[in-house]
């Protein structure tokens, strides 16, 4: 009976690993690698990858550009309602993507909250690449914000204080002290957000629609190709697995090279350490 427990633990692990790895492996086993590469030359796959790359890069620039200073402020100041703001920023993490899509339509759609104002300035967002970018920003930015707040928080306040005492202005303290010391944590959050954005599906299909060459990202193309060109769907799927794996490895490995004092050396640290 004493041996049962370790055996049960081992069995649970085997079940978990098999269950999680099998679907990923199956994608590669179903179609030979050469065929997968050939299918990526398909016009539809190429268009989708291009749309994904464009929108992800723009969205990511926005996430980093707005998210970094916002997270810095949240990490270095205490104010009433800060906890509420932090929770609000995390809400999209747990929101079903379809709800995110509905919300984006309700806010920025033609008949949405800001629809009229947007139309005054000649902006109709749904069905455009901007809609894809917004959908990606909405679902992906919380991953970065959360990690960035944790990373900035873990910088020793005494160091920031010392920099100020030595006469550095706030911008210089941020750029020369806080930012370099948080780089590993920021990098991990950034990578995670990029991966999540690349895989965005539900909010995009509701808010931006699906038009090849314009708003059809790789995940949408997989869905579209599923009925007719299963091989194209598999090829795109395989490519996304490879990219995701590369991003995951980057998150795991890069922090150990940079030797930053930030605690965010694994994917999961930003989630647990608050």
């Amino acid at each position, binding site marked *: 009976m004493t041996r049962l427990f370790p055996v049960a633990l081992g*069995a649970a692990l085997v079940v978990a690993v098999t269950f999680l790895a099998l679907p990923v492996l199956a994608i590669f086993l179903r179609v030979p690698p050469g065929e997968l590469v050939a299918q990526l030359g398909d016009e539809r796959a190429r268009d989708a990858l291009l749309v994904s790359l464009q929108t992800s890069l723009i969205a990511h620039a926005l996430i980093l550009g707005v998210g970094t200073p916002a997270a810095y402020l949240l990490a270095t100041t205490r104010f009433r309602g800060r906890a509420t703001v932090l929770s609000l920023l995390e809400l999209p993490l747990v929101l079903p993507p379809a709800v995110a899509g509905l919300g984006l339509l309700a806010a920025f759609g033609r008949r949405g909250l800001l629809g009229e104002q947007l139309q005054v300035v000649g902006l109709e967002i749904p*069905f455009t690449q901007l809609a894809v970018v917004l959908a990606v920003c909405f679902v992906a930015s919380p991953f970065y914000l959360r990690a960035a707040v944790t990373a900035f928080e873990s910088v020793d306040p005494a160091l920031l204080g010392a920099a100020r005492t030595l006469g550095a202005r706030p911008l210089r303290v941020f750029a020369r002290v806080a930012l370099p010391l948080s780089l590993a944590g920021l990098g991990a959050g950034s990578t995670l957000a990029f991966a999540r954005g690349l895989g965005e599906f539900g909010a995009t299909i*509701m808010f931006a629609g699906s038009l090849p060459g314009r708003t059809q990202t790789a995940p949408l193309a997989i869905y579209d190709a599923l009925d007719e060109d299963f091989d194209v769907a598999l090829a795109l799927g395989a490519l996304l697995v490879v990219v995701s794996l590369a991003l995951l490895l980057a998150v795991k490995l890069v922090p150990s090279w940079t030797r930053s004092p930030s605690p965010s050396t694994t994917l999961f640290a930003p989630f647990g350490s608050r």
Partner: protein
Amino acid sequence: MTRLVWLAALALLAGCGGNDDPLTVFAASSLTDVAPAIDPDATVVLGGSNDLAAQIRDGADADVFLSASAKPLTDLRAEGLVGPPVAFASNVLVLVVPAGANGVEHLVDLTRKGVKLVLGAEGVPIGDYARESLELAGLGAALANVVSLEEDVKGVIGKVSLGEADAGIVYATDALAASDDVTAIEISKHFQPRIRYFAALVGPPSDEAERYLERLTGAEGERVLGDAGFRPLP
């Protein structure tokens, strides 16, 4: 002891799998009201006909498949996965616009610059029918106004009823079901493709599945289909 744990795990997995007791009907999205009405006890799975066909190809546990066009069924038939397809209803296309006038009143308006048109994707029955209709009307130019290609009728209706798109082409039955949110505009019979709904039994036929098919093609089916706006077979 190891074996015991494995057996427990296997039993658990088996429990997660399908149970073929109740009848499972795979039905095209446009049959939302029809498929459950034929047999309230049946489990009805709705979706795009092609998506459903793909699921059946991958071993989904369906007993009856109701498709919005012949092709998914003839393909499955060629692969030996379903019985002979039976036509059971027909449908017509309509133009749908958001409730309240928006300037789109006729098929020809779809070619006007700036009109946001939503269609079914290529290969999806409603998408192929809509393209056929536009071609019959000589309005292929309208395709330049397409802003989104949806995987099923729900996607098209949804984008139009939210007012995000200016127009879409769907089955008359779907427009009827969504008549609170969209206005349906008839399309001339000269521009109507031939739309037939087909049913087939999946895998080895059960008595229950055969009864379902009999009810669907009988008087009860005719009534339910008529209520939902389907046309009888000519």
